[in-house]
């Protein structure tokens, strides 16, 4: 059996405001493009199967598991990773609240939690309902717990994460 050579494709995409045009192996996930090709190791690989949320990034403003997206499918996309949340050295309010509320311990799920929380806040602001929404989505601890359940924290910082997210969402 002669193995097929890998197929390479050039992709133009914007990451944290900077345009990149890498030639990617068509099997490469967005997560591996970020981590292994572009040196953006803030996005974490916890399971590579979309089960833990550690790789969550914002793709055209919506939160996605970067391990489940093929890089080649990101042509023209705008990607924001944890490295793009702070501006000119000034932390995003969620980043500040995470520190203040001790919303992490080992820190490995943290970048995904942060990007997920940013995405969740905009979903909530757009009126998207969740499984626990009664009529209008309101910012409650129950909504945060429901909407953030795709981001696992094995250190168990959930009460602190909820407090940090609630504080910055008000």
């Amino acid at each position: 059996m002669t193995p097929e050579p890998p197929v390479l494709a050039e992709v133009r995409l914007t990451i944290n405001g900077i345009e990149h045009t890498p030639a990617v192996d068509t099997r490469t996930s967005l997560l591996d493009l970020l981590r292994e090709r572009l040196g953006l190791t803030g996005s974490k690989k916890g399971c590579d199967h979309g089960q833990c949320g550690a790789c969550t990034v914002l793709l055209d403003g919506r939160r996605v598991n970067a391990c489940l997206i093929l890089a080649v499918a990101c042509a023209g996309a705008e990607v924001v990773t944890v490295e793009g949340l702070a501006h000119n050295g000034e932390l995003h309010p969620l980043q500040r609240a995470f520190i203040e509320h001790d919303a992490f311990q080992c820190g490995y799920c943290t970048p995904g939690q942060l990007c997920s929380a940013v995405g969740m806040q905009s979903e909530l602001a757009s009126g998207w309902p969740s499984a626990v929404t009664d009529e209008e989505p309101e910012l409650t601890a129950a909504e945060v717990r429901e909407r953030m359940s795709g981001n696992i924290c094995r250190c168990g910082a959930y009460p602190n994460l909820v407090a940090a997210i609630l504080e910055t969402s008000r």
Partner: protein
Amino acid sequence: MTSVSQQAVGAALDRVEGREKVTGEALYAYEHRSDDLVYAAIVPATIPKGRVRRIDASAALALPGVLAVLSHGNAERLPDADGELALLQSDRVAYRGQIVAAVVADRIEIAREAERLVHVEYDKEPHDVELRADHPHLYKPDTVNPGFETDTEEGEVDAALLSAQTTVDVTYETPSFHNNPMEPHASLATWGDDGGLTIYDATQGASPARETIAEVFGLKAESVRVIAPHVGGGFGSKGTVRPQAILAALAARAVGRPVKVAVTRQQMFHLTGYRTPTIQRVRLGAEPDGRLTAICHDVVEQTSTVQEFAEQTAVVTRMLYAAPNRRTSHRLVALDVPTPSWMRAPGECPGMYALESAIDELAIALELDPIELRIRNEPDHDPESGLPFSSRNLVTCLREGAERFGWAERDPRPATRREGHWLIGTGVAASTYPARRQPSEAVARRDGEDFVVSIAAADIGTGARTVLTQVAADALHVEPERIRLELGDSSLGQAPLAGGSMGTASWGTAVHRVCHKLIEEREEEEEARVDTSDEIEAEEEYSRHAFGAQFVEVRVNSDTGEIRVPRLLGVFAAGTIVNPKTARSQFIGGMTMGLGMALLEEGILDPHFGQVVNRDLAGYHVPVYADVDEIDATWIDEHDPHLNPIGSKGIGEIGIVGTAAAVTNAVHHATGIRFRRLPLRLDRVLEALA
């Protein structure tokens, strides 16, 4: 030098590496960079027992970008390696998932494809992976982890049980639990021109890892450097060197380039250790007033055929409650399974689930409040060793927790509270964990007006960097901002691992001493060094333990079997709390994992294929946001002069001890049903309710 009146120890300092972690700058093992770096991928065994007959690597090697395929046939010989670290040294397969080969390729995608192209043929043998209390090959290990006596006996247990007015004789079962830190185990290895080896490793202890890796490769310890500035959790699973570290080094030497490898989430269930399943029989005998006359705790658990690991499950029963007649035992069977290892509070965690459940069963049999029953059996010294306790505030924790939780209003009758579909109950259990120390080296040096303190400690998310900064600040009489704390590097000296809840006590002693030495004895000098071996050797004999009490409210859905935990409270007595912010996180983190143990977590072994079938995070459920409602931890003021210069007891593990018993005790109170097998899965609850 400005002196500060405000003490740093006791202050709720933010994590000193917080900014690095929230910006994504903090680098974990797999993320370090190196020129010419290539990728290794693991080929796992697809049979549970037998021999590798033949490996055909030709298809993999034909793939452009593949540099090597390693197997027992061509891998470097490691005569000093044994157990799980004797990697690719033999054709034997001892469990499904064991590493039988590895590929090295210049890109991650190619390594992954090549791994699937390696064709392995086996000679399969019959396997045995099922733990049973009547297994014919049960044996008595020489000691149990990390060196305790296997069995203990005092008095006449059988006679006392026969003559006791009230007895409990019950058996509890726990499944395998899997640590599942968020960062998969990973290593990046580079060989230097001088024959030295540098490994970025996901490890809980850079200096013990260095010793082990040096031994495996027949090197002097000085020739190996292990670096781990940030570690994405471990919970014991990164406390021992795991096979991927050896693989990275073997592969790097084979291809002459730096190699990195990460264990996949699925492979973690077989390659990174786990908590053994247990079958625990607990027998208690008591007088009508509740005083225990006999305690007996017999444990059956498993190990592998690769190396022995004997969890010390019944050891905690030797010290918790007074009783004149007492016996504990541990029996193992070596199955065709991966080797179990440390998981948060090995011994105490599963052992206290059984003991504290049995105590609740006894309280019900005696019609006595479970807190009062515990108070009546409070020993005035360590029942096993006869030593005085350095401090013991279990009763204070129980009383304080009862007050905060509103225990006094509790109606003890089970299955009497219902709100719609929900049955409501409350439960309590005790927590305890030993307070130990090990020797450590540390260095402190001046850096202009600031100070650098170096110690080969590990911060796996515990907050070690932060609390050691606080200890140093107080010893040097400066603000914490003036301290730069260096850790996570074996070149910083000898230090114990982050394990056994002894990090802060062990490293803290060294940091405290070295900072004092620098400003008091080395006023004119740039740096000071200490080694605390003598101090720890000369420690007075005490029985040193932290204690706690956990209170749980549960709601059990009578239609679906769903269990919700609206309230979980822990009250702990752990000496000086160095940082209330990070300490609370440690306690609630442990309790959350305990909640997972009670309700969700279970490695399900397929006896036919001999593997964990739910080996990912979709199948093995750890607690997520929606599983955790109100959870809080607090602590009492405890001053114990017999510990260490900081007066602290370890807090990393006690949070998981007792939680599962508190939950199942509450479920009994809610439903009247005693579940003696973890976890309390919906299907099991529903069946019992029907």
